C-alpha cells in the first residue's frame, strides 16, 4: 500500500458520529451523497476548505457514538486520504476498515501535527512524517489481515473474491 500524503485537518477528542454525520440525515443511503452532510452541524466550513487527499488528524476516541456507517462513508467518499487519531471508537474503526478507508492509531499525533501542515502516513511501515516540521512518529502497524482488507478496497471486494465472484 502506497503511503498517503496530504494536508492535515486537526480535530479535538471525542468527535462523535452525530458531529461527523448528523442523525437527521440517516435516511441518506447513497454513498456518493453522504459527503454533502459531513460535519455539517459543528464544522460547517470543513467541506469548502478541505480537499480530497487531505488527512484528518484527531484526538482520542474519534467516531464514538452510533454504528451509523455514513460517518465513515462520508469521510471516505469525500476523498479523505487517511484518518489518523490518538484512538478510535470501535464501530467507526471497523467501518473504516470494511470500507477501505485508511486509518491509523498514532499516540501523540495531536502534539506534533498542527492544522494545515503536510503529513505523510505509511500504514505498512507504521511511520507518520510531518513534512512541514520534519518530525517523525512511529506507530504499531495494523495486523496484516486488516491491512490486506484495506488494500483490497474493503470488505465488499474481499467478499467477492472469497466467494469467487469476479
Amino acid at each position, binding site marked *: 500500500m502506497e503511503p498517503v500524503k496530504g494536508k492535515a485537518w486537526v480535530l479535538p477528542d*471525542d468527535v*462523535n458520529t*452525530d*458531529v461527523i454525520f*448528523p*442523525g*437527521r440525515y*440517516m*435516511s*441518506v*443511503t447513497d454513498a456518493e451523497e453522504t459527503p454533502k452532510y459531513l460535519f455539517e*452541524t*459543528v464544522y460547517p466550513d470543513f467541506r469548502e476548505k478541505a480537499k480530497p487527499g487531505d488527512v484528518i488528524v484527531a484526538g*482520542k*476516541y474519534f467516531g*464514538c*457514538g*452510533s*454504528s*451509523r*456507517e455514513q460517518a*465513515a462513508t462520508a469521510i471516505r467518499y469525500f476523498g479523505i486520504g487517511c484518518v489518523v487519531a490518538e*484512538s478510535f*471508537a*470501535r*464501530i467507526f474503526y*471497523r*467501518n473504516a476498515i*470494511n*470500507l477501505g478507508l485508511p486509518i491509523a492509531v498514532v499516540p501523540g499525533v495531536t502534539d506534533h501535527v498542527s492544522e494545515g501542515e503536510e503529513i505523510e502516513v505509511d500504514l505498512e511501515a507504521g511511520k507518520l512524517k510531518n513534512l512541514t516540521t520534519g518530525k517523525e512518529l512511529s506507530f504499531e502497524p495494523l*495486523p496484516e*489481515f*486488516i491491512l490486506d482488507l484495506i488494500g483490497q478496497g*474493503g*470488505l*465488499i471486494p474481499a*467478499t*467477492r473474491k*472469497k*466467494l469467487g*465472484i469476479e
Partner: protein
Amino acid sequence: MGKTLAEKILAKKACKSEVDAGQIVQAAVDVAMSHENGRMVKKSFEKIGVDKVWDPERIVIIFDHRVPAESERTAIGQKELREFVAAQGIGNFYDINVGVCHQVLAEEGFSRPGILLVGTDSHTTTAGALGAFATGIGATEMSAVWATGELWLKVPETLKIVVNGKLPDGVYSKDVVLKVIGTIGSDGADYKAMEYSGQAISDMTVASRMVISNLSMEAGAKTAFIIPDKVTEAYVKPRAKGAYEMLVPDPDASYLSEHTFDVSDLEPQLACPHQVDNVKGITEVAGTKIDQAVIGSCTNGRLEDLQEAARVLKGEKINPGVRLLIVPASWSIYREALKQGILETLIDAGAVVLNAGCGPCLGAHEGCLAPGETAVTSTNRNFQGRMGSAQAYLYLASPATVAASAIEGKLADPRKYLEA
C-alpha cells in the same frame, strides 16, 4: 488459565477449542439484525453480487427508527425493504407496529445465552443482558454476513464490574450504569467486553439488566454481559427461537481490570450535557429548568419503567411549561400498559403517548428540540444535536427522575414522590 465469557462464546463460534483476547477470529453468526438501515445493507449486498442471503431464518428486520415513515424518502426505503424480505423469504420481519429492535429481539426469543448476535445498531449490546455475545456492526459488514454468515472479530479483553449492595427505592439500574460510566469514562471500555455480576445485578429483573447492557455501549463496550442465571433462563426458555447454551465465565478467568461498586447509598444519577460520562448526582443538578421530558427508548421504555413513572405521576399534573412524551419500547408493552391503566395515569398527568419505536431518541422523527431548550430523557445519548438542535441540552436519567422533573418543570429528585 480460565476463560472469560467473551472468549468462551467466540471460541465456540469460531470452532476452536479456545481463543485468547487479542486474537482475530472468523466467527459464525447466529442472529443478524437490521432496522431501516437494512436498506444500506441491501445496497452493499447487491454490490457483492450473490442472489440469495446465506440463511433467511437467521436474519431479522425490525422497523423502529421512523415509524410510521416521517418522509417520502423513508417511505421508499421501507417499501424497498418490505419487497426485499418477501423476495428473500425472510420471515422474521417486524413492521411499524412492533417496537424498538433491541426490545423485540428479546421479546421474540432471538436474544439468547451463548450465541453470537450482530446488529447494524450500536445498542445491539442490549442482548448481552441475556448472555449473548451481542455487538453493533456497520452496514457493509452486515452485507458480508448476509452473504456468508460470518464476520471477523477481534476477541476483546474484559472488564469485570461487580455491583454489590441493595438499591434504595427510587434508584434504578439506570442510576447504577450511569455511575459506572461516570467512573470508567465514555471510552473506559472501548473495544472491550464487560461482565457484570454482584448482588445488586442478580436481584435485577431482565428489563433492568437490559438497561445496563444497553448503556454500557456508551462506555465504548463491544459487548456487555450479565452472567446468565436463573432469571435469564426463566425469561429465555419459553420464548427461545433456536438453541442456546448457558455459558458462564470460568472463576479464574483473566480480566483487564476489576471495578467494584456498592449501590446501597446511591442517589439518582444524571448524565449532563453533552457527554454520557458527565455524570452527577441529583442533589447537584436539581432545579435546572427543563422544557421537555421523555420516557422511552430501548434503554428505559419497558413496562417497569412506565410503572415507576406512573407511580411518581399518579394524581399529579405536569408543569404547564413542560412537554412530557411517553414512548413504549414495544407494542406489547404499550398494550400491557394500556390494560393496566398505566397509560391513563400518565395521560391524566398531561403526557403525550407516541407510537412504540425510537421516537425522539435520535432526533429524526418527532419530539425535536429548539435551540436553547433543555430536556431530561430516559434514553441513552446526550450528544450535541442528538434530539434536534445542536444548541439544546440533554440530561439522561431514570424514568422516575424524568417523571418527577416533569412535575416540577426542573430537574427533581423522584424519591420524595415515592414515599408512603
